[in-house]
């Protein structure tokens, strides 16, 4: 086995091993824990950089281990896998810094960072999976690793959120398992293949395949928070801010969305799915989720809840782009994996900063906060405008490609959905910005902590600034080949629409 086949495994171990060591560390070994965390995250980013370079130049990274008679555990780094891996590696590094700052002096940090690392391990595993059973394995691991993070605070609300989360995700996992085994019993293979591996199956299985499609999409839809499987997500916002940030931007929600991408492109294949007639319902479901999430977000006073409903809406752009089934819309959907991640993590970091520094949890408490915390609110503003789809921020690029792609595929109704969603986004983000920048503060902040001349601790401030700049940059420089958009085009060319 060559060096190249070990790299995907090393990538997984680079977060798994620090995580396992951290579990064993005593609570007070702060410095060692931070070192391990950052070391793991940096090694992770380094390895990803190496593999990005390799994949760009056509190197093949693949690791196969026997799992069952006839079924292998496959870790493969193709262009799509690396797209998601890069997102998680970079955002993990940034979130780790944020979490270290955020959780200073709180109990059970070893447990927290241990599961935090496991969560990233599972996400990277999901990204690198080369067949459906490997995907399933890491997907379930993700469920288990996230639960302790959601209930971390141990309050009654947190435990209730944890139970809801488990009820949804374990049920989704069962549907996924059923779909996967059923598919295997029909085809005898589960290997992700560009354009899917089901064409050859012939006509008599169409009904079974349609049901399998529904099962798989429902299984992934639970984590991707597609309506009606979204109920757990707004509750899960009771978790500590770094967890919600990672949950909404990278780990759980994105794993579900990524699963939908995999099912449509690499299991069923776009043409076969379109032929089955399952893409149109998926597109409608995504559209409904987009509008529904935004509508609900309008009426939330709790900032994190408003952001959570916004996630429900935004993540479905990915499913929508996939379901429109044209090359341009696909690029729009896939690139949103990264774009939404950057913007949403910025927003959650900022919400965490407001809560941690001033004790602000509600939108109605945010009057004049822009003057007290200008940098945080500047980052928030970038994220919010990005979500609305204002150029030149990342969100605009997504919406542009989705819109053009929909026209290209002859599905003009999508434009209406996009326009409606943008209006709603504006309707629930602009009032926040207006309060923060243009209203006078009403008396004291709910629970202010003093950081001297700085607005907040630098470990809390740096991450959102960084991700906000990134959200801006990937939008500005979208036409460079190294931008996420450029890479998404590469994916579409190489994996989805090969001649």
């Amino acid at each position, binding site marked *: 086995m060559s060096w190249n086949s070990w790299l995907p495994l090393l990538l997984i171990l680079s977060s798994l091993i620090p995580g396992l060591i951290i579990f064993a560390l005593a609570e007070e070994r702060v410095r060692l824990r931070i070192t391990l965390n950052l070391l793991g995250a940096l090694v992770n980013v380094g390895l990803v950089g190496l593999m990005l370079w390799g994949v760009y130049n056509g190197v093949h990274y693949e690791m196969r*281990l026997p799992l*069952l008679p006839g079924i292998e555990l496959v870790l493969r780094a193709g262009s799509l896998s690396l797209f998601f891996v890069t997102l998680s590696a970079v955002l993990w590094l940034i979130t780790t810094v944020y979490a270290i700052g955020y959780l200073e002096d709180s109990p059970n940090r070893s447990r927290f960072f241990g599961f935090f690392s496991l969560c990233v391990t599972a996400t990277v595993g999901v990204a690198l999976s080369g067949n459906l059973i490997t995907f*399933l394995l890491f997907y379930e691991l993700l469920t*288990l690793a996230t639960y302790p993070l959601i209930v*971390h605070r*141990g309050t009654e609300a947190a435990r209730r959120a944890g139970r809801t989360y488990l009820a949804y995700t374990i*049920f989704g996992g069962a549907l996924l398992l059923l779909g996967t085994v059923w598919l295997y019993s029909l085809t005898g293979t589960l290997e992700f293949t560009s354009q899917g591996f089901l064409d050859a199956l012939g006509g008599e299985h169409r009904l079974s395949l349609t049901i399998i499609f529904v099962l798989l999409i429902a299984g992934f839809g639970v984590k991707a928070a597609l309506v009606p499987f979204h109920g757990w997500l707004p509750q899960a916002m009771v978790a500590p801010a770094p967890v919600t940030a990672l949950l909404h931007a990278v780990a759980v929600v994105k794993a579900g969305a990524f699963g939908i991408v995999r099912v449509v492109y690499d299991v069923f294949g776009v043409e076969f799915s379109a032929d089955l007639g399952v893409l149109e319902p998926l597109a409608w479901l995504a559209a409904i989720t987009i509008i529904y999430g935004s509508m609900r977000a309008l009426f939330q006073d709790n900032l994190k809840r408003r952001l959570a409903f916004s996630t429900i809406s935004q993540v479905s752009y990915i499913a929508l782009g996939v379901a429109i089934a044209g090359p341009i819309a696909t690029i729009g959907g896939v690139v949103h994996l990264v774009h939404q991640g950057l913007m949403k993590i910025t927003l959650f970091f900022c919400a965490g900063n407001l809560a941690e520094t001033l004790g602000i949890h509600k939108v109605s408490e945010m009057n004049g906060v822009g003057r007290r915390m200008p940098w945080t609110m500047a980052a928030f503003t970038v994220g919010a405008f990005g979500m609305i789809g204002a150029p030149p921020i990342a969100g605009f690029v997504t919406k542009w490609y989705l819109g053009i792609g929909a026209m290209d595929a002859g599905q003009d109704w999508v434009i209406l959905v996009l326009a409606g969603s943008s209006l709603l986004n504006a309707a629930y983000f602009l009032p926040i910005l207006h309060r923060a920048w243009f209203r006078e503060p009403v008396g004291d902040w709910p629970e202010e902590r003093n950081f001297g001349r700085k607005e907040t601790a630098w470990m809390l401030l740096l991450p959102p600034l960084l991700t906000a700049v990134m959200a801006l940059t990937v939008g500005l420089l979208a036409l460079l080949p190294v931008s996420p958009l450029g890479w998404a085009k590469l994916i579409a060319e190489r994996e989805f629409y090969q001649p």
Partner: protein
Amino acid sequence: METVVTEFSWGIALILLPLAGGMICFLWPRRTQILGLVTVFAVALSVGGLAWQMLDKGVYRHAVGGWGAPLGIDLYADGLSLLMLATTALVGFAISVYSAAYFKQEDAIRFWPLWLFLLAALNALFLSGDIFNVYVTFELMGLAAVSLVALAGGRDALGGAMRYLLAALLGSLAYLLGVALLYHGFGTVDIALLSERVEPSPVVWAALGLMGAGLLLKTAVFPLHFWLPPAHASAPAPVSALLSALVVKASFYILLRLWLEVFEPLISSEGVYTLLGLIGAMAVLWGSIQALRQTRLKLLIAYSTVAQIGYLFLAFPLAVAVGSTAWSAVAYLAISHALAKAAMFLAAGNLVRFGGHDRIADLDRVVQRLPLTAAAFALAGVSIMGLPPSGGFIGKWLMLEVALTQGRWDLVVVMLLGGLLAAAYVFKVLGYAFTQAEVAHEPKTVPASMEWAALLLALAAVLMGFLAVPVLSLVDIGDPFGLSEVRP
């Protein structure tokens, strides 16, 4: 050296070592702990020797005293026996390490001889090639196991032990009657010879009914499970682990053997398969729901055993068409459950030792003081729920695959529901690891070896999720499932 390994009759050692060890423990009570540990370790090594030998030469057969069947007694081991022996050795060794720290001296002098006799009975049972021998091992096993349950003392334990004793004796008696009928009808008790001689006749049906009923009772499958929860829940933790992990599997193993070699070829009507599948499904659902309803941890784990045994019976209707995969699934589920359930009971033992009770609702403070134990329970739970990566997942995957290939949607639904319910009762316990309980600072009274024994067993259950290919190829030695079809 190598010829010693490949020539020595390891099967004899597997039976005689623990028997002798048990007797020496009686004679030399002050050294019982160390004697017991050494014996169990030697047994584990012998299983290693047997495995080596079988990898080299295939099926193991030994005519005791030089007299072959039908006159003498044959010891026989194929891949399935080896798998059970290895599981027994591994689980037994971990439980022994745990027990060395668990029992105080006055209990230890009673525990070790009984446990070693139980080990001898288990090994002899897995090596038996004839049905009368099996009866003898059943009696030894039953008596040792019942005494071990009674070891805890107190009203619950004695009551549980009494019920267990009656169930075990009744089961053995029914089995023995079946043996007598078969012997009368066909003049042999050797399984291999029987499988050649039996033909459909009223005697065979009566024998099947009696032996089947006896074995089902001993295996505690629904609705004959009534004796299991009180016995398993009231016994000392290492004993509960032994019973749930190994002893119920032993009677299931015999049922499977007889079914495969003697009865299955004769049965043409679907009624029997359907019945076995039905009680399996009922066991899965009933056991899981009961587990979910329990307020005491050890009862919860015991009912989970009732549910998990049910899965093994789901394979009977499925195996008609695709035998090898269905039986592989059963073998895999059985050993994964053995590892995971032993880990769970040992973890429960740690919690009881630390907190002095097993009321689930008050466990939070205890769980949070014992992170290794909590981890052991969680990892074992992953396998019990059938989530990947774990042995439980592999077994469930294979079983689901067979069920779907045959379009048995009823069984698919049962398996998935069982998994969901298992998740519900595992997380019912695990949820308490994450409350805001006051962390007390009383000194830690659970020895490290007890925590690690539980954790390592749970890790083994998870590791089984990656070992399916080598383990299943080991099971194929001697083609125990009697099917020449090639696995896909």
